[in-house]
C-alpha cells in the first residue's frame, strides 16, 4: 500500500508586515514559513501504519509549493519515509485549494497511491478544502475530519471516526482507495531525532512542474482556481479595551472587572 501525504508550509505574517503592491497579498518578505500543524498528525498516522506493517506500506510526503516548501518535506522525512515529491513552477502561483488539489490528484495517479492522508485544514488560510477537492478530482471515497483510523494494507475498507461538532463522533467504514483528512489529536506526533534530521538531508526530493503531470497551465494557478482574491486588508481593530500598567495593576483591574460584573449579575 502506498500512502501519499500532502503537506503544506503555512505562512505566518510579521507584526509590521506590508501588502504587496497589487494589494492582493502580503509582501513575501514578511512571511515566515513552517509546516502546517495538522500535517504533523497526518504524517504521524502514515508513520504508524508503516511501522505496523513494514515493507507492505510505503509513505511519501508531497507538497505543492516553492523552494521554501522543501523544509516541510525534510521535516517529515526526518521522521521516516525515503523520498518526497515537490511540485512547483511559476504557473502554480496563486493556486487556490481547487488548483492545488488538481495537482495532488494527478500526482496520486502518477504514484499509484492507495490512500491519501492530508491535514483537515491549514492554519494560515483555513479553507479545510484541499484534501476533499483531491477526492473529487480522483472520484475516490472520502471522509473529512478523521479522529481515529484503522486500516490494513490489503483491506478493502478503512474504519474511521469522523469528529463531529460538540464532542460527538461517527464511526464509519470507507472503501479504499480513499482520501482522509486528518484531525488534530488523532495521535501524538513524534519529534525527529538529530540523526533523522541529518539523514533527511540526503533523501531525494523529486521536483516536478505542472506539465510533468500532464496539466495545462490554465488548469492551475488563478485560472484553475475556484476563486480569486480581489483585495486583502487588515480587519477593523477589535473593540477590546487594552489594560496597561504593571502586572500587578493589570491583575487588579481584572479582579475589579470580575467583581463589578459579578455584582451586576447577582
Amino acid at each position: 500500500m502506498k500512502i501519499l501525504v500532502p503537506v503544506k508550509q503555512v505562512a505566518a505574517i510579521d507584526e509590521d508586515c506590508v501588502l504587496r503592491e497589487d494589494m492582493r497579498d502580503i509582501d513575501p518578505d514578511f512571511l515566515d514559513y513552517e509546516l502546517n500543524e495538522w500535517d504533523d498528525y497526518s504524517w504521524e498516522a502514515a508513520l504508524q501504519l508503516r511501522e505496523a506493517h513494514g515493507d507492505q506500506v510505503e509513505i511519501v510526503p508531497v507538497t505543492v509549493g516553492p523552494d521554501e516548501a522543501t523544509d516541510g518535506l525534510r521535516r517529515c522525512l526526518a521522521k521516516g519515509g525515503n523520498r518526497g515529491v515537490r511540485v512547483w513552477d511559476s504557473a502554480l502561483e496563486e493556486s487556490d485549494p481547487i488548483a492545488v488539489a488538481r495537482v495532488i490528484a494527478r500526482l496520486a495517479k502518477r504514484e499509484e497511491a492507495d490512500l491519501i492522508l492530508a491535514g483537515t485544514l491549514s492554519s494560515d488560510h483555513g479553507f479545510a478544502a484541499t484534501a476533499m477537492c483531491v477526492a473529487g478530482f480522483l472520484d475516490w471515497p472520502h471522509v473529512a475530519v478523521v479522529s481515529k483510523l484503522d486500516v490494513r494494507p490489503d483491506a478493502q475498507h478503512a474504519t474511521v471516526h469522523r469528529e463531529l461538532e460538540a464532542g460527538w463522533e461517527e464511526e464509519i467504514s470507507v472503501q479504499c482507495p480513499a482520501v482522509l483528512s486528518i484531525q488534530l489529536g488523532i495521535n501524538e506526533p513524534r519529534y525527529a531525532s538529530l540523526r533523522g534530521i541529518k539523514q533527511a538531508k540526503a533523501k531525494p526530493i523529486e521536483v516536478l512542474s505542472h506539465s510533468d503531470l500532464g496539466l495545462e497551465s490554465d488548469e492551475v494557478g488563478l485560472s484553475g482556481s475556484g476563486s480569486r482574491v480581489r483585495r486583502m486588508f487588515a480587519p477593523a481593530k477589535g473593540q477590546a479595551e487594552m489594560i496597561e500598567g504593571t502586572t500587578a495593576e493589570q491583575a487588579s483591574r481584572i479582579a475589579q472587572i470580575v467583581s463589578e460584573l459579578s455584582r451586576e449579575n447577582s
Partner: protein
Amino acid sequence: MSEILVVAEHRHGELAVSTLEVIAAAGELKKKNNMAVVVAVLAQEPSTFTDQLSVPSVDEIVNVKVPLGEFQNDNYEAIIGQLIVKRNPAVVLVPHSVDSWGYAPSLAARYGYGFATDVFALSYDGDELIATRAAYSEKMQVELDFPGKETILITLRGNIFKLEEGSSSPVITSFDASFVPARTDHHRFVEPESTGDVDITQSELILSVGRGVGEENNIESFRELSDLMGFTLGCSRPIADSGWLPKSRQVGQSGKTVSNCNIYIAMGISGSVQHMAGMKHVPNIIAVNTDPEASVFSIAHYGVVADMFDIAEELRNQFE
C-alpha cells in the same frame, strides 16, 4: 429570477441552527439582488423540517427523500449536483460544518463551481458576487470574486448571521433524485464521554487555559486559581488533546459552546476560529496573551498583553 440554493443540515433528526443562519445570509443577498431563496432538504422525512424552515426569506422548500437518514458524502454530492443541474442556481450556500467539509470541496472540484469556504460576509458588486473571509490566521481578510463561474458554492461561518424572525408559507416542492451507491457505511454515533465532570455549558464564569500553559504540571495552579476566583476551569483544544484536562472542559467547535457564560477569561489562548466558535458570544471576554497580535484580542472586551503566569500570581494575591 436567479436562485440562491441553501442546503439544510440536520443530524439525529434535528435541524442545525446553522441552516437558519445560512438562510438569513441568503435573505440579505436576496434583498440586494432580487433573488429567490430555495432550501433543499435531504432526509428520510424532509417534511418534518418544513415548519422550522418556513422563515420570511424562504420562497421554496425542495424536499428530497433519501434512503439514508443521516448525512453521507456520496449521496449529498450526487443529489446536490443533480439539483444544481436542474435549477441552475447562481449561488449555493451551506453551513461551514464538519458535514460540508466532507462534501462541498469535492462537489466544487468535480463540477468546476466557484468555491470559497468559511465566508462571513457576502455582497454584490454589480453582478459580481463578493465573498469575504479571513487569511493568515484571522490577522488579515480577503475579498474573493469568482470570474466566469456560473455556479458559486460557499460555506458560511457560524454565529455571524442573525436569525430571521417570523414565518412564511414557502412553496413546497419535491425532487426525485437518482441515488448513487454510498461508499461509506455508517456504523454508529459515539456520544461525548460523560465523565461525571462539571457541565461547562452551564457555567457562568469560566477561566480557560490554552497552549500558553506550557506543560501539564502547570494546570493544577490554574485549577486552584479558578477555584479561588469561583470560576470553572476550561481549556482550548491542545490541552484536551494532550489529556491534561478532560475533553468535557474543551471550549470550541469540537468541544463545548459555553452558552450560559457571562465572564470568560482566556489565558494563553491565541484564539483559533475553532475555539472562538465556542465562546465569542460571551458578553464579557477578558484575554491574557503575550502576543499583542493574538486573534483572541479581536473578540475580547478587555485585553491584557502579559505573561499568563505573572497575571495568575497577581490574581491569586487579589483573591486570597
